[in-house]
């Protein structure tokens, strides 16, 4: 089942890539087509996905995933969703506020259960990262379009 899924996902990716390469306009006279390498690579990928599917049809069925496997996968998907929200919230709220919220959440996910530690992380994490990257290295911090804690602190 897993081998079939891998083959099908790869086939889907290669079909999208072939379609994308096909959208590249034709070359002007005396030039080479800009889509030649993407097209060749995506066709080769389609060939490999067919090989994977053929291989999957010959394999005996593997063991079904256990409930603990599914739970772990769900946790990682959950962390990925947190990561997506975290990076998006930089655009809305700048760096400090999202980091102050996400730091204790991620620490909790990784097993930190000390409430004092989690509370301290809300202050320490944004502060330390802000000082290292935005003060010492001089990187310009992302500005929050909705509310920016840094601007509020700086008055």
């Amino acid at each position, binding site marked *: 089942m897993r081998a079939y899924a891998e083959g099908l996902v790869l086939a889907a990716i290669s079909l999208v890539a072939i379609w*994308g390469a096909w959208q590249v306009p034709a070359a002007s006279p005396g030039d*080479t087509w800009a889509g030649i390498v993407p097209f060749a690579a995506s066709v080769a990928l389609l060939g490999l*996905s067919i090989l994977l599917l053929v291989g999957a049809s010959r394999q005996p069925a593997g063991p079904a995933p256990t409930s603990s496997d599914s739970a772990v996968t769900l946790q990682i998907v959950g*962390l990925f969703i947190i990561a997506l929200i975290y990076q998006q919230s930089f655009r809305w709220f700048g760096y400090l506020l999202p980091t102050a919220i996400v730091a204790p959440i991620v620490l909790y996910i990784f097993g930190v259960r000390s409430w004092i530690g989690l509370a301290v992380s809300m202050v320490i994490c944004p502060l330390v990262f802000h000082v290292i990257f935005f003060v010492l290295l001089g990187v310009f911090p992302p500005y929050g379009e909705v509310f920016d804690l840094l601007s509020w602190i700086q008055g």
Partner: protein
Amino acid sequence: MEIFPALLSVITDPMLLFAIVLAAAVGMIVGATPGLTASAAIAMLLPITFYMSPLFALAFLYVIGKSGRYGGSIAAILFNTPGTAASAATQIDGYPLAKSGKAGKAMKVATISSVIGDLMGDIMLVVGVGFIAAIALKLGPPETFAIYFAAFVVIGSVIGKSIVKGLASALMGILVAMVGLDPISSEERYTFGSFDLSNGIGLVPLMIGVFVLGEVFAQLEERRKASGETKENESSADGNDLTWEEYKPCLPHAVRGGFIGAGIGVLPGLGSAIAAFISYGEGKRRATNPEQWGKGALEGVAAPEAANNAVSGPSMAPLLTLGIPGSTIGAILLGVFLIHGIQVGPTLFLTDKELVYKLFACGMLGIIAYGVIGYFGATQVARLILKIPTNVLYPLIFMTAFVAAYSARGSMFDVTVMTCAGFAGWLMRKFDFNIAAFVISFVLAKGAEETFRQSLLMSDGGALIFVERPIALGFLILGVGAIAFRIRGIMKERKLAQGGLGDA
């Protein structure tokens, strides 16, 4: 000869010396921490190097890479958990030695052998790199494309469990690199109308995502599955010191391992794990005490460790002379060169020769630095690692990944790329796809495309140009031969497995 003034110049620069020693210590800690890799550390530190001089940045990351390879042996010997894939070969004899109270002795053999192997590799690099660069200058686009082709195929097919998945990973790396404007005609490719995508996918966020965030996801998975805690194997009273009589039989294995590692290091993509296992196998075949190997032979630690570290220097040769990174660390270092506007390839030895030799000098001093720290302090490093609370470490790495990706160009799109690359990296790991092939192919793709299209223009669109030129044909055959060789190896393994089952 250029190396001597370069060495003198580096030795007289206290800041650079400090950076080398710091990098040696950082690399050792990172390499010895199970789950953390030198690639992850280098990727995470990559944006910081924007603010350093090119030599300082390159030397710092290069020495972390070298020291990280050695650091893997600390975890392999003391914790029975290889810190890197290459140190799995060291674990075979290193852990039994540690269990019998000879952890300190095994660590000292690993340190001396690593230093011997690494120095041998660097000396061969210094001697040979100029010749390779001179030859590379004479290669035309068809020959260069054929080398790229061979690199793609070797990287995709030789490393990893599955040839099909390895090659698929390499192709996906090429496809991701194609996103953005075509450098020749400025036509948009895979941009789907997005302005952000028209600038292409950045190397730095991709690296941070795949190596750092992807590793955090993988560690979360490991932590949920793993049980029990890691304990250090301590040395008995006489198990800490190493005498010359004890190391003497290890020396030929270390020197042979150095040659094997250096030879394999020049070939892109093969990497230190393959070198370590070949050296271990060859050492056991030639050993006077093969029955002891696997049960705690010091020679069984020396052979793989020397080979593992000897890969480091020569793997820089294809990177510096042809722009083809031989390893993931090489791919990241290529990013540093590009960040600082230095064009890697044969012309590098005409434009920035001094920088290159100073980098080699820093590498050699880095070897001595991690040798000294490791010889006298490996067990202290192990104790420090056991004190690091991983449930705090990985969340911190998680958050560093975001701010590091943002710092590279001050771009929020880069942060999004990093996040998606992290999840994709974890999926690739989980489904046994080849991350190294993906990343190295991503880096190589632009150069390969350029030379391919230049070749087609040279021949008015005829692909026969690659077959008509003997050097190009040779490399194409090498690529196809690599796949055939690997398929033969897999078939042989299957036959052996079936035979074994039949006998049972």
